[in-house]
């Protein structure tokens, strides 16, 4: 009585006590003695160069998020803000970063060098949002804003501080779209940073959207 092999798509039935077990895309098979070995042909197995470490989904419950537990294991990180929304009763809301040198027990609130360049609303210029934190995405005006950004963090965990740099775009119903580029640093020699948090300097909650942290293999 022949043996039937039921697969994801169709069945195969042995004939004269023989079944063909073949490798398809990305797979090879080999047989020896009473053993069949199935092997992936991806050589070497691809190592992801970018790994999602954590995602925060904003839901109008907080304006500070400690990222320290997730920002580990790499020397280079990428942050992507996806359609983050703020209610802006005050101008110059931003999605910003602050560092710690004691693992997050206390936070460094002075000494940052920051700068970004913006173009939109019929003009362009540069602006420094201060020295208390590094902007990842600056929201403009006093109405709801949507923001998307991509920022690179390097130096974190080393001994000379850290740099954050990137570009972003913000939009709202009153002043339209603004494209921006910049960030900041906390430089020191030596300075080892081992804590990191998101903060909104205007202390109002992030309403919606996502903030994702990626480790970059270098």
């Amino acid at each position, binding site marked *: 009585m022949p*043996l039937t092999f039921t697969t994801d798509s169709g069945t195969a039935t042995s004939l004269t006590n023989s079944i063909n077990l073949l490798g398809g895309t990305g797979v090879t098979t080999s047989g020896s003695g009473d053993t069949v070995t199935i092997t992936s042909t991806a050589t070497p197995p691809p190592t992801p160069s970018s790994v999602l470490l954590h995602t925060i989904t904003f839901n109008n419950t907080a304006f500070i998020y400690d990222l320290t537990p997730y920002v580990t294991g790499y020397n280079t990180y990428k942050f992507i803000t996806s359609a983050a929304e703020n209610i802006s009763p005050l101008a110059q809301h931003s999605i910003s970063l602050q560092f710690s040198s004691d693992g997050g027990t206390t936070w460094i609130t002075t000494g940052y060098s920051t700068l970004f360049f913006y173009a939109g609303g019929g003009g362009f210029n540069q602006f420094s949002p201060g020295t208390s934190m590094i902007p990842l995405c600056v929201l403009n005006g006093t109405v709801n804003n949507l923001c998307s950004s991509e920022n690179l963090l390097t130096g974190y965990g080393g001994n000379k501080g850290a740099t954050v740099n990137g570009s972003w775009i913000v939009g709202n119903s009153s002043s339209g779209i603004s494209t921006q580029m910049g960030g900041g640093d906390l430089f020191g020699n030596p300075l080892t940073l081992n804590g990191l948090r998101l903060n909104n300097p205007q202390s109002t909650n992030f309403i919606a959207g996502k903030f994702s942290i990626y480790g970059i293999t270098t």
Partner: protein
Amino acid sequence: MPFKFNPITNKLDLVENGAVPTPEQDFVTDAGTATSVSQVINVVGGTGISTTGVGDTVTINSTASAPAMVLLHTITFNNTASSYDITPYVTGYSTYKFIGSAVETPTGFNPDISIQFSTDGGTTWITSGYKTQFFYFTGAGSSGSNATTNRITGIYVNGTATYINQGDFIMTGYGSSSGAIIQGTCATSFSTDYVPQILGGYYFGATLNGIRIINGPGTNYISGKFSIYGIAT
């Protein structure tokens, strides 16, 4: 009732009607043993695997998708060189990403992290004809410049202090007959300022098959990393 011919008696012998055995078969795997039931065995794809069966053949396919970005090589700077031939690593893709991570440039006049191409696989290097542009802004103001024509500047350091730099760039066209273009953003950091930049350049109208990193002033890179990624397109 079944019968069987008996050659000694030349008669048919009655054969008792017993149960026909069903030989179930064991399939020993990496983790556990599967046993066929009623002559049927299930060959099911797990994570990243699908299976199909036709006739007397079972085919096993990988469904794993290729990663969109693959690390090809990383240079770790250690104060031993001012140029690095990266030709062996920049291959197999039409689009590449370069990331400079916490690169410490030497003190001295205006070091940079730049790119030069070759049309003979790296035997000689092209030292003229590049079109470049960068825009920077500092606490003191902003400006643009077509910085150089002998290389494409990826990270430009304007000063003589200890700088820690980062950059994130895309290169397209390399290997085609149209030349290549590099575009990205970078930032230089030192004790008193942070300087973001948008910059890049291109070399037009040649099949480029060699590429190197070079510091214009010729001094060694102190520390940090420079990584090369292939981008699936």
